[in-house]
């Protein structure tokens, strides 16, 4: 744990400093967590909701954080769980299957004000949407954020070997998608 994280952790354990320490954490990690969520939910409004839920959940669960992992890892874990829960609840509300949900997300993406990708980037997002959710997570974290497999293991609770295999398969699928649709 680096010095900043150590200082923040001390702040979180102190009743008088807890709020200001948490406020600093929000400013430190909000962008990283936002983009982590946004890559999965695609819509800005949904990402905003999930990001809020993430921080509120973290705030409410502060007493349970023992400091045995990095603060950033802990926040990433909460953000990942909140994202997957959000997607599952959305499917349930809309009575859709994963396939239908992906089609809907794609339709919304193309008309989204906050999407400014070109033809290639759009095709990549389409290809990523064909991956199973967990594999999509792995691909996004590796391809866009270059998160190490060891960090990913801490966040997702999956072994490094399994993560490497998952990423390798994801890349093959995306290459195939481009060959067939490019």
């Amino acid at each position: 744990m680096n010095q900043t994280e150590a200082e923040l952790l001390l702040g979180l354990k102190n009743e008088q400093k807890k709020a200001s320490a948490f406020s600093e954490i929000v400013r430190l990690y909000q962008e990283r967590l936002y983009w982590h969520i946004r890559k999965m939910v695609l819509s800005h409004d949904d990402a905003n909701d999930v990001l809020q839920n993430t921080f509120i959940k973290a705030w409410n669960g502060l007493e349970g954080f023992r400091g045995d992992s990095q603060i950033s890892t802990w926040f990433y874990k909460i953000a990942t769980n909140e994202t997957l829960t959000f997607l599952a609840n959305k499917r349930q509300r809309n009575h859709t299957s994963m396939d239908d949900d992906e089609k809907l997300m794609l339709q919304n993406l193309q008309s989204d004000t906050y999407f400014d990708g070109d033809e290639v980037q759009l095709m990549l997002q389409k290809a990523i949407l064909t991956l199973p959710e967990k594999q999509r997570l792995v691909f996004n974290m590796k391809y866009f954020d270059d998160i190490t497999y060891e960090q990913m293991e801490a966040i997702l609770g999956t072994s490094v070997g399994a993560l490497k295999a998952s990423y390798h398969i994801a890349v093959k699928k995306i290459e195939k998608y481009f060959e067939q649709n490019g």
Partner: protein
Amino acid sequence: MENKKHISFDLAGNKLPFTVPEDYFEKFALNMDTQIAVKQVPVFHFMRPWMYAAAMLLGVLFIGKGTYNAYQNQQLSNAENYELYVLSQVDEDDIINYYLSEETN
């Protein structure tokens, strides 16, 4: 005839094709500050354990009283039932003769 341009994965790059509203992150952080301020529990935090203990005691007393009342009602019901049972075993004429003998005595 124009050939369709082949789109390759190699050309995709790793730049995200998403944007956010202007000043989104500044506003988000301020919004979270407000939400946390609302959620913060002030001075009475140290009293929580005592409040939990008091609530538990009240709960035990309430359940205890309810159980005792139910037991008393059951006892009463048993006594009434027993009395009715005993009376049902005695002939009505015998009861009348008993009371008449009491009167004459």
